């Protein structure tokens, strides 16, 4: 790590980590004892369940519905049993299920055969994902020099995957390193993943495996043309967190929006459901080498960025711990934060810079994701461009990992093609013009920025202590995050959570736990 500019107290940082460990421990215990419909659907997808029936119901959903309350034993053995019993490939079995086969009606073969077959299926899944990881590593290394630092991240959101492709390819040619395809509004609340290529969406495009495949192919083509590996991002959030993760692992996505609490707070998804789902989703992301992006920026769009800065830092610590418990290495933790202070505040720039630098010094190995101004973007595109310039300045000078480019037309409409160009041009100007600024400056001892960081860290510890006293579930219920209350048994998706039976069987979960060296309870960070 480079020399500290903020002179942060390392004992305090260690204390915040210890508190986060204590805060997440009871949640981990709960997670270990439970499964969910989406975890089971994910496992089925890992085996090969895919496709839809004539009513458009995905096969994984059909199977989980057939199994019903018995998902407490795990869905894998039913599906694998059906493969053996019928002597079919997954594709053939999917067809039969689509045509009405109820796999729970089949007699069970001897369990040792299921275990044997499971091993083969796990192997096939593992080989495929590992090949994706190797391909990505190879390309990233090959084209390393063309990459911007921070990575420039652009969003497309037309609703039509084929239109997205055009915009994404143009954005890559303009200089973007990372392309995110925004999901259609409302997808996070669907308890299934739509199927096939889609051309209709609102404010974004459906996340489907076919859409992932189409965009991946397009970006690989453009990447080869311009000599760069273009990273692809989607959203591993909502009621299908782990399912989206496995689709991303199979189709070689490179980043996933994936927060441990976002769904609870901002989409009113039940907290138990979210906690159980987020772990498996992060295990998959971890195995597939996918960088997660956490959603701390959202705290600041609902609350004041100066007063509530500590909630961002606290959430980063909690997200880090949950990620760690899922076997995710620090280099894949794109912890989030945002430039959302009121531009009228005197010295607001110094406060923003202190916050960004603090995040970098606390999480030096993490590719931090820095989000642009949105809340105070007014429609004055000229002021907006100026604000984005200051934002870019902070991103570069505090060594952020991923720079989500601000759009001068934020708050007006989904970006025009030219808006992205202007965003990239602005960032490239700043990145080049202050390339070594960070190495060349120190912060004044006990100055505005050092003092600000110290205050926020102290507030963070105070806040984490309060959460620890009441426990995380209660803290969420009593409005301690984002000024919203989410009751423990409220929100969407609770009925999809089930306590695991003693002989719960999930060979894929177990495989990932072993591969990722996840020790149950009480890991040391």
């Amino acid at each position: 790590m480079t020399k500290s500019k903020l002179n942060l107290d390392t004992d305090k940082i260690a204390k915040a980590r210890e508190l986060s460990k204590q805060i997440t421990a009871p949640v981990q215990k709960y997670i270990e004892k439970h499964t969910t419909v989406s975890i089971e659907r994910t496992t089925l997808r890992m085996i090969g369940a895919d496709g839809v029936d004539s009513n458009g119901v995905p096969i994984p959903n059909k199977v989980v519905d057939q199994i019903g309350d018995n998902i407490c034993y795990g869905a894998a053995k039913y599906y694998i049993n059906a493969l053996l019993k019928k002597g079919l490939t997954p594709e053939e079995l999917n067809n039969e299920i689509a045509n009405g086969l109820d796999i729970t009606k089949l007699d069970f073969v001897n369990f040792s055969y299921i275990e044997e077959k499971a091993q083969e299926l796990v192997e096939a899944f593992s080989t495929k994902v590992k090949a994706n990881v190797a391909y990505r590593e190879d390309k990233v290394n090959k084209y390393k020099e063309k990459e911007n630092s921070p990575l420039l991240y652009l969003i497309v959101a037309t609703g039509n995957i084929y239109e997205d492709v055009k915009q994404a390819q143009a954005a890559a040619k303009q200089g973007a390193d990372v392309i995110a395809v925004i999901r259609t509004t409302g997808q996070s609340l669907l308890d299934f993943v739509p199927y096939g290529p889609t051309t209709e969406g609102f404010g974004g495009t459906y996340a489907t495996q076919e859409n992932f495949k189409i965009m991946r192919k397009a970006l690989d083509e453009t990447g080869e043309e311009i000599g760069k590996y273009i990273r692809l991002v989607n959203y591993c959030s909502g009621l299908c967190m782990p399912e989206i993760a496995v689709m991303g692992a199979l189709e070689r996505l490179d980043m996933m929006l994936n927060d441990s609490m976002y769904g609870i707070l901002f989409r009113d998804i039940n907290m138990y459901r979210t906690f159980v789902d987020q772990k498996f989703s992060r295990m998959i992301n971890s195995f597939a080498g996918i960088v997660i992006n956490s959603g701390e920026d959202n705290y600041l769009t609902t609350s004041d960025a100066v007063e509530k800065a500590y909630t961002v830092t606290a959430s980063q610590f909690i997200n880090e711990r949950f990620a760690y418990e899922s076997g995710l290495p620090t280099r894949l933790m794109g912890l989030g934060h945002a430039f959302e202070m009121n531009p009228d505040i005197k010295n607001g720039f110094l406060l923003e810079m202190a916050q960004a630098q603090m995040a970098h010094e606390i999480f030096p190995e993490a590719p931090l994701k820095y989000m642009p101004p949105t809340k105070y973007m007014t429609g004055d595109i000229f002021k907006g461009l100026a604000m984005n310039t200051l934002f870019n300045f902070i991103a570069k000078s505090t060594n952020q990992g991923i720079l989500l480019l601000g759009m001068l037309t934020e708050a007006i409409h989904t970006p025009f093609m030219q808006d992205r160009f202007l965003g990239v041009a602005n960032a490239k100007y700043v990145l080049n013009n202050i390339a070594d600024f960070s190495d060349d400056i120190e912060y004044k001892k006990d100055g505005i920025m050092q003092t600000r960081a110290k205050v926020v860290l102290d507030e963070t510890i105070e806040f984490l202590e309060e959460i620890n006293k009441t426990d995380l579930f209660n803290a969420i219920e009593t409005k301690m995050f984002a000024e919203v209350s989410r009751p423990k048994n409220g929100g969407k998706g609770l009925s999809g959570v089930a306590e695991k039976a003693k002989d719960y069987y999930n060979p894929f979960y177990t495989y990932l736990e072993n591969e990722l060296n996840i020790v149950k309870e009480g890991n040391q960070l």
Partner: protein
Amino acid sequence: MMIRPYGDTLNDGAVQMSFTLPVAHSAKADEAAIIFGKKLGFKEVEVVYSNPLSDEFTFFVVYGKTGISIDYDKVVVEEVEKSLDFYGVNNFIEENIKRKIVIVGACSGTDAHTVGIDAIMNMKGFDQHYGLERYPMIEAFNLGAQVTNEDLIKKAIELKADAILISQIVTQKDVHIQNLTEFIELLEAEGLRSKMVVCAGGPRIGNKLALELGYDAGFGRGTYPENVASFIVEKMHERGVK
């Protein structure tokens, strides 16, 4: 009074524009941008900057001068009246309605962006303007995002709402128009339209549009909580609500 845009001399009609054309960057593309500007009715069209966005698209910054002018005296707007402040609203309710009023708000339909409704309703408010939850004489219920129109009406009945606020941020393919229209139709079907003050809000929603869709008012960019509160209480008073 006839007016036209002002650059640096009265009536020069100067306008700055930027746009993209779906053609490769070339001298021909620049000329096409000039011809396009002239077709828009501009004279002295000048491409001051052009740059390729990809192999098939070019971005232009263009200046032109227009000869078109409009009669300012004939311009008519429907605007929401000047509003009371935080204290004024509370006093007005105490004096005229003499009970706490109930306001229910939501970001409805498939829209997941609560930034607008939060700015108006949350305790904290926005830009130093308190949100409705902070008003002692208002019981405010922010139902959050992605509330269906049916649920919103159900909740409004249950809470005995005096007013309903609907926020719509996503406007792609006019999804907000469909949703806002459906809401009013449902409300009318329930026979509740006249019993409640109903307002729409969002960055692309103006008072004019809201009135056309059958709402009592629309609040666009730059609206503060007291503007909304003030309109509601005055409307309730005007309708003789006690």
